[in-house]
């Protein structure tokens, strides 16, 4: 929606903030926590994919991922998780991080991925949810390794 005279629309040089799709409204930038929550909630409503990992539980919350793998490449990631904004955001970051990678590359990516650094706004007492999300995805990648092994 266009908002007349808004600071964003009146940006003197909209091209200066162009994203991958070209010049934009001036709001392109690093995704916010809310962006990850919104995308995560949409992904969490999507159908479970063929390779389903074990659910991981911690402190009354759970996360479970599923993957679609085609010719060794992860082409789809879905998850089901407790509706907690922080956990959903961590799961979404993890899901986006491995989409399009081969299974070994995804495993390497998850070993090096620091979800807490990806979402620095999360208070310290909620950062353990990053571990829950990453462990849930790693078990699913391990499951994918088993199921796709020839």
């Amino acid at each position, binding site marked *: 929606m266009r908002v007349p005279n808004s600071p964003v629309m009146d940006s003197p040089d909209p091209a200066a903030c162009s994203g991958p799709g070209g010049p934009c409204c001036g709001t392109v930038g690093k995704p*916010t*926590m*809310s962006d990850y*929550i919104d995308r995560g909630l949409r992904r969490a409503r999507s159908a479970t994919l063929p390779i389903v990992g074990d659910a991981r539980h911690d402190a*009354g919350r759970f996360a479970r991922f599923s993957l679609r793998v085609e010719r060794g490449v992860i082409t789809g990631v879905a998850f089901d998780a407790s*509706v*907690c*904004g*922080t956990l959903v*955001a961590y799961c979404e970051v993890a899901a986006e991080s491995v989409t399009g990678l081969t299974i070994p590359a995804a495993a390497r990516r998850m070993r090096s991925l620091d979800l807490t650094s990806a979402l*620095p*706004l*999360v*208070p310290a*007492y*909620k950062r353990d949810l990053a571990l829950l999300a990453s462990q849930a995805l790693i078990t699913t990648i391990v499951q994918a390794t088993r199921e796709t092994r020839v």
Partner: protein
Amino acid sequence: MKVAYIFATQRHTVSYVLAKMILPQLEQDRHGADVVGMFFFEDNTYVLAKGNPIGERLHAVAKKKGILLMGCDQCCYEREIADKLFDGVPIGCFPDLYGALSGNMPDHIITL
């Protein structure tokens, strides 16, 4: 009687009802009920951010009386204040709120 307040609307809920009614009464020990918790939605969460003058008073009286203060987590993330709240003030969603209140359950929850 124990009560918990949920600040859900965004008219003068914080600047008037909280700051000019509830908070002064709590500070003067004449509110008439034991407040065990307050939960803040949407723009009301700004009162929990460090530096907010109403929040400073609220935080002080909450510490003194053991009142739980909590902000809606998604509301705080959306406003990018989740890491800027007063010390010891958590963010959470309904399960977190009920969990935090479970040891000191209110008789009434009042939505403002």
